[in-house]
């Protein structure tokens, strides 16, 4: 079947038909963690997590991405054992975590504010998990040295956290969460407090360690570029539900909802009415009688209102070179120069404007000015027809953009 139902159900990534049967017969599966119909509410009325089904596979780097208040951190905290859930179950290696206290879960956690113990040196911090597990002194020293070497902090073992920079503190937190060889490591926006350069450096570092050790990582962030560069899979959260889960490429190039298209990367939104729809393509009439050919995410009946998404960087301003299904004349309204690229804002019809991202190599050889007529084109494959965003989701996106 070509079309997927996108009715905000949270069943992506779960391939079980009746999830409730899992509670009764936990069996060995390839997934390390399984959220089965998990629900969370604080007051019994508003749900923070709404029927969440999610599989975390062995050894993968899974990112939970979403705006604040979307339930991603709550999901992580339930997995770590700091929050309870109201309904459903979380299975870890096939066993329910419901009655397992945090200190017995053997899951490493890296906190946003590092949560290093200020009265202990780096060495004492890192050996703390071993001390709780009564690892003999002789084995301890070697393992601590090894962990510190892994995060390149060998020389700083005797320092206190207050004497370290933010990046170094983060490395200590990482070493401390990894030293007891947990199968699963949870990271709650671990790089949120670092500046941009250091953040990028630490992203590479975390990826390197993940590849070297092969532990499973569940990573929470609201930074979409961080999610795209680091993850094997991304789960996009919105209002306590998973909108879509898949590889970064999948999510970026084949967004299943308008929310995903808008939350990940730049996007042009146009609203229109379906005039024709089949499996491969649909015609959407936008205002002023222009018709755009797009790929529908599901079957739309004639007359249904849809939202069209096109990535700015997939719009060609020199459309003669390729065969494009959608070709329009636009009037250049505004140029934003960004160094490696420029954003050209063109009015194509009535109120509808489109941003085209033009690389420097193209922008340099075809100088344009405001008011010029510009030819714009894109293929049907790059253009998606989604269901309209509902009002509250749209406002969430707006606040993220603002």
């Amino acid at each position, binding site marked *: 079947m070509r079309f997927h139902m996108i009715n905000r159900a949270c069943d992506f990534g779960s391939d079980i038909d009746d999830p409730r049967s899992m509670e009764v017969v936990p069996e060995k599966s390839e997934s390390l963690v399984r959220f089965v119909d998990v629900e969370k509410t604080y007051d019994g009325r508003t749900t923070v997590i709404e029927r969440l089904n999610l599989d975390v596979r062995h050894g993968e780097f899974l990112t939970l991405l979403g705006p604040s208040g979307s339930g991603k951190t709550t999901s992580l905290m339930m997995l*770590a*054992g*700091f929050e309870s859930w109201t309904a459903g179950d979380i299975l870890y290696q096939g066993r329910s975590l419901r009655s397992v*206290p*945090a*200190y*017995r*879960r*053997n*899951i*490493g*956690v890296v*906190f946003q*504010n590092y*949560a*290093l*113990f*200020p*009265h202990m040196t780096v060495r004492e911090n890192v050996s*703390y*998990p071993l001390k*709780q*597990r009564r690892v003999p002194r002789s084995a301890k020293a070697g393992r601590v040295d090894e962990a510190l070497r892994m995060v390149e902090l060998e020389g700083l073992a005797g320092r*206190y*956290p*207050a004497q370290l920079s933010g990046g170094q503190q983060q490395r200590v937190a990482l070493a*401390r*969460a990894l030293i*007891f060889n947990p199968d699963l490591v949870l990271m709650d926006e671990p790089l949120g407090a670092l500046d941009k350069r250091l953040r990028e450096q630490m992203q590479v570092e975390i990826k390197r360690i993940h590849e070297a050790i092969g532990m499973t990582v569940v990573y929470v962030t609201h930074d979409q570029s961080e999610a795209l560069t680091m993850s094997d899979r991304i789960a996009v959260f919105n209002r306590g539900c998973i909108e879509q889960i898949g590889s970064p490429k999948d999510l970026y190039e084949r967004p299943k909802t308008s929310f995903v298209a808008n939350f990940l990367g730049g996007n042009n939104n146009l609203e229109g009415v379906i005039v024709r729809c089949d499996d491969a393509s649909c015609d959407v009439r936008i205002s002023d009688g222009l018709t755009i050919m797009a790929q529908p995410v599901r079957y739309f009946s004639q007359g249904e209102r849809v939202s069209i998404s096109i990535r700015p960087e997939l719009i060609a301003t020199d459309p003669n070179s390729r065969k494009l299904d959608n070709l329009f004349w636009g009037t250049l309204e505004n140029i934003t120069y960004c160094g490696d690229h420029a954003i050209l804002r063109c009015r194509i019809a009535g109120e509808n404007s489109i941003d085209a991202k033009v690389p420097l190599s193209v922008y340099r050889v075809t100088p344009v000015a405001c008011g010029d007529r510009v030819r714009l084109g894109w293929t049907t494959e790059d253009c998606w027809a989604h269901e309209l965003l509902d009002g509250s989701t749209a406002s969430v996106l707006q606040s993220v953009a603002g």
Partner: protein
Amino acid sequence: MRGRAIRFCLVLWSAGVLSFLCLPVIAVLPISFSASSFLNYPLPGLSLHWYETVLQPYPWMFALKNSLIIGSSATTISVVLGTLASYGLTSGKFAGKQIVLALLISPMVIPVVIVGLGLYFFLNRIGLFGTYTGLVIGHTVLALPFVVMTVTATMQGFDRSLVRASASLGSRPLSTFFQITLPLIAPGVISGAIFAFSTSFDEVVVALFVSAPSQLTLPRQIFSELRDQIDPAIIAIAALLICVSICLMTAVEFLKKRSARLTQAVR
């Protein structure tokens, strides 16, 4: 120029206020070295006689020993109870939290005479009147609010994610309390203990209500001495007590600084 004049006035004013507070105490201290047995100036001659008097086993040193025993017992009990109460009041979410806190603090605001009278009837009823235990209970009641106040203030600056971190690293709640929470709130606990001790150490009202002669405490001895005969021995013991107080206050300040340094370190 004008700024300097204002500054000078401010210094003068502050010096005036400080002398107003300290001079009455400082003024009497030289009398403890007096060779006469009356509290008057000018001193007829210098002598350490009165210090010798108060260092005799009875009654002064006996009273001091009682005060130390009762003070340290009351301190220990109030620190344990107060720290536990503060931990619960700052971590837990339950209805009536403010009311519980108000009840714990109340001995600080209720007139001591009322507390003393209440304890008198209560301890009589349960048969602890005129015992060490009775007096320790009384002083614990009075000292507890100080521990609760200082520990609660310290707990507010305590980063709770450390408790979560400790749990995630495999530490049980009790072991987390002793390895992480207690060391980090120790400055608050210790200054609470010092306040508790000094509360008990110079408490006279409850001691008058509930103690028998065998539990003679230092403040009680001073009090009866003042009533019966006034001689420079009182000033001598006061001078010794002031020295102790200064040491304790210095310790509190030092701990406050240390606590500030540690909490800053987390940011």
